[in-house]
């Protein structure tokens, strides 16, 4: 747990220091990818509470979900299908669902 927090802090620091900036056109993709990875993290948290946490599933889900979401939005842009909002909705819904389940576990535990 501590290691995860340290990793997060290091990541934020890297992102602040790193001179890389996302072009305006791709900031949409990054936001979808970010949401997808957030969803994966909450999903992983939930599975950890359920004692079903699988490292491979978590890590593969994290990257594949993020990349696929970004890719789909990118392709959708060219087909004039605005998948951006769909992705936002789907991932947002799942995040809130996971949060509710996590909350219930906490309530049961303590």
């Amino acid at each position: 747990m501590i290691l995860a927090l340290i990793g997060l802090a290091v990541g934020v620091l890297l992102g602040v220091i790193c001179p890389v900036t996302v072009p305006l056109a791709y900031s949409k993709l990054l936001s979808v990818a970010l949401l997808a990875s957030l969803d994966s993290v909450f999903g992983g948290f939930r599975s950890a509470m359920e004692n079903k946490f699988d490292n491979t599933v978590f890590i593969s889900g994290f990257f594949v979900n993020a990349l696929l979401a970004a890719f789909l939005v990118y392709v959708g842009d060219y087909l004039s299908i605005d998948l951006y909002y769909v992705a936002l909705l789907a991932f947002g819904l799942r995040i809130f669902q996971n949060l509710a389940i996590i909350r219930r576990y906490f309530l049961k535990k303590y």
Partner: protein
Amino acid sequence: MISFKQGHISIAFVCMVLGFMFALQFRATLEQKASLPYQRVEELSARLLQTEKERDLLQGKIDELQNSPGSLAEVRAIQELRLRSGAAAAEGPGVVVTIDDSKTTAKAGENQNLYIIHDDDLLKVINELRAAGAEALSVNGQRLLGTSEIRCAGPTLSVNNVRSAPPYEIRAIGDPSTLEGALKMRGGVAETLKVWGIQMDIRTSDNLQVPAYKGSFQFKYAKAVRPQEVTP
């Protein structure tokens, strides 16, 4: 506390990637918010710079054309023509005549129009000045040309299609005493206008500026005739 059974390092790595993405997205959003008005400013300043460059270029062209080499006689002829046509500002001794509406109010039953300045009053003054040898004239900053009109436009007067309201300031370059005398002579314009209480102030000056004509010269119908084509 929750414990992940395996892969501490990989989870830390995932968290690091997540934090990195967070920071990146945060910065991108900040930048996006800041950059939109900034882009507009940059675009406008670029356009301003370009327009200024264009203006300087055109100004340079004008200077170049005006100073283009010609014989001295040619240059002098052009300068004289510019002065005569009103394309060049003129200066010299002359008079400044300021005319304003009458301050006396019309008596009952009297025509109020008699107490205000009309286009023909101004025309009379200008005609008198011209007769006295005025070389350059302007009314309220409008140079009088051969084509200038002096016309009643409601409560104002229109000169060179520019309207102006009283008081009218007529500048005339010529011999100051002659010009002044022409206006003030017995039975002259000044005396006639005085009857109606119209205020007329004549001031002589040694160095008077008469502005150049600001409009453009366009001849739609008239064409210059070459000297040899003139039939007697």
